[in-house]
């Protein structure tokens, strides 16, 4: 029993990191109707930048937190540039072109990361004060996971406050409902697009920072994480942040228990969950029916 609980808590930590990635993906989709394949690549850059900062400032106390401040901002700027220089040109084009453009960015980003950091696996240690373990029901449990929970919870609350308590958030929700109507009411939709893409990139970057002590950084991250984030978003419903949270927690549990049941084929379970959701409720648990 203790084993199961410990496994479940581990899954929760990883799921919450993925929530950060998936919520950005979901918001970008909700507002812009673009599936950003490059979202996983932004996440990867967050992870590599954390490695870069923590290696360069090896002797500085609080280097992990410096990375946590700096890396997501750099990734957000990257997102801003991608939106302004590339995506903006193809909003009016077919969906196919948008998928292909962001897919091209995955190829490019992977090789740029290879150029800068090489193809070896990299790892980052958690910050000193949580670099240990505590006993939970007699099992040792990494302290760092608690930090991930706290930060993810703070981000979730922050996103909720942004979406439901600010004017900008109101506009975003309106855009998810009906983009044309929002534009007709005098909202500068182009600026909302840019802002939303930048925010999404920042979230992906933060996810990349937080994942570094949990798993090794490699060039497989973009493909792997975009698929997982997409599964989460599909389960939760495209465009819904709350859905992304539920989906992320479910996926984390699926991963954790899948490893107990069939270690080698654990990756298959989330897909089965997604397939089930799509067959029963094609627009996701908390999505809008129009997306069917």
């Amino acid at each position, binding site marked *: 029993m203790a084993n199961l609980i410990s496994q479940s808590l581990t899954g929760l930590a990883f799921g919450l990191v993925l929530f950060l990635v998936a919520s950005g993906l979901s918001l970008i*989709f909700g507002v812009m109707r673009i*599936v950003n394949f490059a979202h996983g690549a932004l996440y990867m850059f967050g992870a590599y930048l954390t490695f870069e900062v923590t290696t360069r400032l090896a002797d500085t106390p609080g280097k992990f937190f410096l990375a946590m401040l700096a890396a997501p901002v750099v990734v957000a700027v990257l997102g801003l540039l991608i939106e302004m220089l*590339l995506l903006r*040109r*193809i909003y009016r084009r077919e*969906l*196919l*072109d948008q*998928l*292909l*453009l962001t*897919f*091209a*960015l*995955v*190829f*490019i*980003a*992977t*090789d*740029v990361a*290879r*150029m800068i950091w090489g193809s070896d696996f990299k790892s980052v240690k958690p910050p000193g004060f949580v670099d240990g373990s505590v006993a939970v029901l007699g099992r040792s449990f990494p302290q760092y996971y608690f930090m991930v929970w706290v930060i993810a919870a703070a981000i979730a609350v922050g996103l909720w406050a942004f979406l439901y308590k600010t004017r900008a958030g109101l506009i975003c929700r309106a855009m998810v409902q009906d983009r044309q109507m929002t534009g007709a009411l005098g909202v500068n939709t182009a600026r909302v697009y840019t802002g939303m893409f930048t925010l999404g990139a920042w979230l992906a970057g933060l996810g990349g920072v937080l994942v570094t002590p949990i798993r090794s950084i490699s060039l497989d991250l973009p*493909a792997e994480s975009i*698929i997982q984030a*997409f*599964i989460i978003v*599909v389960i939760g419903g*495209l465009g819904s942040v709350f859905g992304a949270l539920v989906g992320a927690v479910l996926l984390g549990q699926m991963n954790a228990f899948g490893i107990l049941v069939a270690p*080698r*084929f654990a*990756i*298959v379970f989330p*897909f089965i969950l*997604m*397939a089930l959701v*799509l*067959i029963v409720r*094609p627009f996701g648990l908390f999505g809008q029916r129009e*997306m*069917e």
Partner: protein
Amino acid sequence: MARAQARDTQPTLSLRPTARRWTVYAGWGGLVVVGVALLAYPHMVSRFQVSLATEAIYLAVWALSLHLMLGYLGMLSFGHAAYIGLGAYTVALLLRKTDIPYGVAFLAAPVVSAIGAAVVGALCIRLRHAVYFAMLTLAFAQIIYTVTFQWYSFTGGDNGVVGFGRNIPAALRTNPTNLYYFSLAVGVVCLALIWLIVRSPFGVMLRTIRENPERAEAIGVPVQWVRFLTFVLAGAFAGVAGALLATFQRAVFPDTLHWSRSGEVIIMVLLGGMDHFLGPVVGAVAFLLLNKYSTEFTQYWQLLIGLVLLAIVLVFRGGILGFGEDAWRFMARRLARPVHGQTAPPTEPVATAPAREEPS
């Protein structure tokens, strides 16, 4: 008389009614020249170039199979590597583990790929939204990749399947020229079959669905059924490409199923030009040449093809053939019209019609 002729030629966009006799002759002549060139090719070039062409052939079949779905039906699959992989592994495993004759193993490849595509297709086709479809095909391809990669006892994991070459007929195994002719024959058969499919009433349904699915549904096209069947057909042809790949490499590795391969085949189709039947063939050849010769100046292959894809999406929408066609039209308009107003390219019937009316 001339007026009636003009009216006949005007409404149709097909090349056939407007094509002059010399165009038809030129077409057949060109086909004969290309055919002779393809047959003579292995006797004029090095061994390396013969095997390069063999590789180009199975890539072309693979790209053609995706084009059936992407170009004619307008459905973007991000998981098309799965079906060439299934075909290749079918041949490799059957020859490695059983004493089944090569021919049977070869024919089993498209069957297994088609079955795989039918299972995935049955689930994915339900999703009408392109985004869901693209992601779900990618997800299933990743499942197949992971299972292949992890199932050491059956697929050999990342060691791949090797040592089945002895069960390939000696004529194909030892002589690259024979293998080239064999691949060419299979490739031509696939090309002809896909051509027939595209030209059939079924092919018209594909384009109707691409242009307007709601309307297609309304006029009685069984949209979901056609989509499913196309997905399965594309899988089957990719399986043939996989069988050729296994024969060519005499070893199969899980790389064949990697997600980046699915991206590469999309790039082949787009590079050649999605609006042309032969686009995927041109794209596969161009892609392969780029792959082989780019290693001389860069090790960053993904960066290169990423930039190529970016350039196609942003600037060269029509790919190589589309670009060639634009250039040809531009030249034809520049050169031909001022001198021979009446022989302006038949692709612009509206412009030529008044000129034809006057002399009558």
